[in-house]
C-alpha cells in the first residue's frame, strides 16, 4: 500500500511537469527540451531555503517559482527568437548549461554531493510527514495546476499561443508580437515546473543534479507526446502510464541490472512508434 502511495505521489509530480511542458510544446508548438532545468531550479531553491534558512515549505515554493520564472525569462529572451528545430537544439543547450551549473557551482548546490536532510512541509504546525498526507498535498497542487492550465488554455492568451503554433508569420500580420507570447508561455511553464521541483525535493528529502539531466527532459517530453499534444487530460494519462510502466516491467522480472536500461529502451521505442503511427498522442489535438 505504501509503495502504491509512493507511485501516486510521483504521478502527481510528473503530472504537473507534463502539464507545464504541454503548455509550451503542445499549445504553443515550441519543442523545448529544457524542462528538467526548471524542475531543478525549483527543487534546488526550495531545498536550499528549507535546509539552510529554515523557511516554511510553501513560502520556499513561492520563491522557487519566482526564481524559476526569472531564469526562464533570461533564457527565454534568447530562446524565443528561434523556431522549430533550432529552438529545440538551443533549449537542449540551455538545459545542459543549467545542469552543469547544478553540478559544478558547488558553493551553492553542493555539486554531486547533493543536498540531504530536506525537511517535510509544515502546514500551520501540522507536519506533512507521512506519505498519505503528502499524497493529498501533492494532488491538491496537481489540481491547482490543472485548473490554472485550463484557464490559460481557454483564455484569449490561449488562443494566441495556439495561433503561434499554427502560423507564426500570420499572427504577426495581425499585430501580435509573437516573441512576447512565446516568452510568456515559456516563463509560465517554468514557474509551474518549479512547483513539481519543490514537491520532489521535500518528498525524497535528498536532491542531487542527476535527477535534472537532459534524460529527464526527454522523459517529460515523452509524457507530453504520449498523452497528446495540446491535451491537458492527455498529459495526466501520459504521466500515469509512464510512472506505472517501470513497475510493470519490474513485474515482468527483468534483473535489476537490465531493468533501468529496459525502461529507457521502452521510452525510446514508444517515441518512435508514436511518431510513426500516432504523432498527436493519445488524445492530442495537434501533431508536431
Amino acid at each position, binding site marked *: *500500500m*505504501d*509503495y*502504491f502511495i*509512493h*507511485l501516486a505521489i510521483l504521478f502527481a509530480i510528473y503530472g504537473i511537469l507534463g502539464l507545464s511542458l504541454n503548455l509550451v510544446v503542445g499549445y504553443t508548438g515550441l519543442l523545448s527540451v529544457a524542462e528538467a532545468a526548471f524542475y531543478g531550479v525549483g527543487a534546488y531553491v526550495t531545498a536550499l531555503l528549507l535546509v539552510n534558512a529554515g523557511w516554511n515549505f510553501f513560502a520556499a515554493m513561492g520563491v522557487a517559482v519566482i526564481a524559476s520564472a526569472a531564469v526562464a525569462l533570461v533564457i527565454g529572451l534568447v530562446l524565443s527568437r528561434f523556431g522549430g528545430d533550432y529552438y529545440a537544439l538551443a533549449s537542449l543547450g540551455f538545459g545542459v548549461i543549467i545542469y552543469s551549473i547544478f*553540478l*559544478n557551482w*558547488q558553493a551553492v548546490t553542493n*555539486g*554531486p*554531493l*547533493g543536498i*540531504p*536532510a530536506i525537511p517535510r512541509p509544515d502546514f500551520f504546525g501540522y507536519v506533512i*510527514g507521512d*506519505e498519505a498526507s503528502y499524497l493529498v498535498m501533492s494532488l491538491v497542487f496537481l489540481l491547482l495546476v490543472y485548473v490554472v492550465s485550463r484557464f490559460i488554455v481557454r483564455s484569449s492568451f490561449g488562443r494566441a499561443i495556439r495561433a503561434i503554433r499554427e502560423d507564426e508569420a500570420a499572427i504577426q500580420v495581425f499585430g501580435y508580437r509573437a516573441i512576447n507570447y512565446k516568452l510568456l508561455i515559456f516563463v509560465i511553464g517554468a514557474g509551474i515546473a518549479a512547483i513539481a521541483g519543490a514537491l520532489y525535493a521535500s518528498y*525524497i*528529502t*535528498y*536532491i*542531487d543534479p*542527476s*535527477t535534472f539531466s537532459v534524460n529527464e527532459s526527454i522523459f517529460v517530453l515523452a509524457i507530453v507526446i504520449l498523452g497528446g499534444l495540446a491535451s491537458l*487530460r492527455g498529459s495526466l*494519462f501520459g504521466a*500515469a*502510464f509512464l510512472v*506505472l510502466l517501470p*513497475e*510493470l516491467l519490474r*513485474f515482468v522480472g527483468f534483473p*535489476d*541490472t537490465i531493468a533501468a536500461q529496459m525502461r529507457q529502451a521502452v521510452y525510446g521505442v514508444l517515441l518512435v512508434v508514436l511518431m510513426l503511427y500516432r504523432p498527436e498522442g*493519445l*488524445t492530442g489535438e495537434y501533431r508536431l
Partner: protein
Amino acid sequence: MSKSKTLWVVVGILIVVVAVVYVVAGRKAAEKNVIKIGWVGPLTGDAAAYGEPMQKVTELAVSEINAMGGIDGKQIQVVYEDGKCDGLDGANAVQKLVNVDSVQAILGGFCSSETLAGVPIATAAKVLMLSAGASSPSLTNISPYFFRDYPSDAAQGKVLADAAWNMKHWKEVAFIQEQTDYAKGVYDAFATEFQSLGGKVINQPFSSNTNDFRSILTTLRSQHPNALFVDVQAPLEATRILTQVQQLGWKPSLLIPDSVAGDPPTIRENQAILEGALTAEFGTDPTNSKFEHLVSSYQAKYGAVPSYESYAQTFYDAVYLLKDGINAVGNNGTALAQWSRTIKDWQGSSGSVTILPTGDRASGHRLEVIHGGKAVPAAQ
C-alpha cells in the same frame, strides 16, 4: 465507449493490477519468526566491484549466525537494496527499507554518498544505520541513529598530509579529485592538514563520467607540483588516469587513497608508475583469529579470498555487532542507537572496536607505501 473513457479504464486497470501485485507480495513477506535487517550498497555500477564482495561477506556472517540459531531463536533475513553509490538511489533504498520492509536496523551504505543521503531518512523513522565502509568526515556526529565501524577519512587525509610535509618535504600537492562525497572528504581532510602545516594544494575536480583527463592533467602539470594525488572513488578510474599521465610523459610522485590501494589488481597493473607512491589504509591484522576465520570461511564458501580485506573485516564485524546489539536491547532502532554508543573494546576480525559519542570508530588509517606492486606499511 468514447476515447477518453477507454483511456481511463486502461489506466484504472493498470493501477488495480499494480496494487494487487503489491498487496499480494506484501502479504507473503509478513513472517513472524524472522528478524529483517536492511542492507544498502552498490550492487551495480563501477563501485559494484566493492558492493558485490561485501554483500557476500554479509551473507557469510548471516548464514553463520543463523546456523548457530539466529538471534533469540529467530533467523536473520537481510533485504539487500542497490544504492548504486549515489545519493538518490541511496535515499530511495533507505526509504523503501524503512517504509515497505519496516526494518529497525540497516547495514549501509557503503559509499559515503549513499549514507549521507540515507541517514536523515532513517533518523526521521528512528531506524539505526550502521556503515561498514562510508568514510566521509561529514558523517561524524551526523545523527544519534548512525554509527560506523570503519574509520573516518579525517584520519586518512591527516596521515597522508603529515607524511607529505614531514617525510617527503613536499610543498605543493596537486589533486585530481572525483566529485563524490568520499573523494571530496579525503581532499578536505588532506588540504586542511597540509595547509595548516604551510603547504599548498591545487585541485582540479572532475565529474564521475569523465574519461578524458588530458587537459586537466596538463593544467595541473604546468603548475609544477611536487606530487599528484589521484583522488578517485573506484580503482578502474585510477588506472584510466594513470594511463593518461604516462601518455603525457609525466612522472610525478604519487599519492592514492585507500579506495585504490585496497584493490591489489589495480596496484599490480600500474606497479611501474605507482612505485614509491604514498597511501594510507585501515589495515588488517593477519594474526587476528577472527580475521583468519573470515578469510578461510569465505574461501570455503565462495572459492576465493575476499577482495578488499579492509572492508571485508568491517562488514563481517558489522553483522556480529548488530547481532550483539539486538541480543542486548532487542530489535528496536532507538534502543540500538543508544546501545551503539556504549560499544567499548568489542573484539572483532578488525580488531578492537570502540565507538565514540560522535558515532565514529576510534582508530584510524596507517601510512603505507607502494612497493613492488603491493601496499606495505611505511617506515616512519
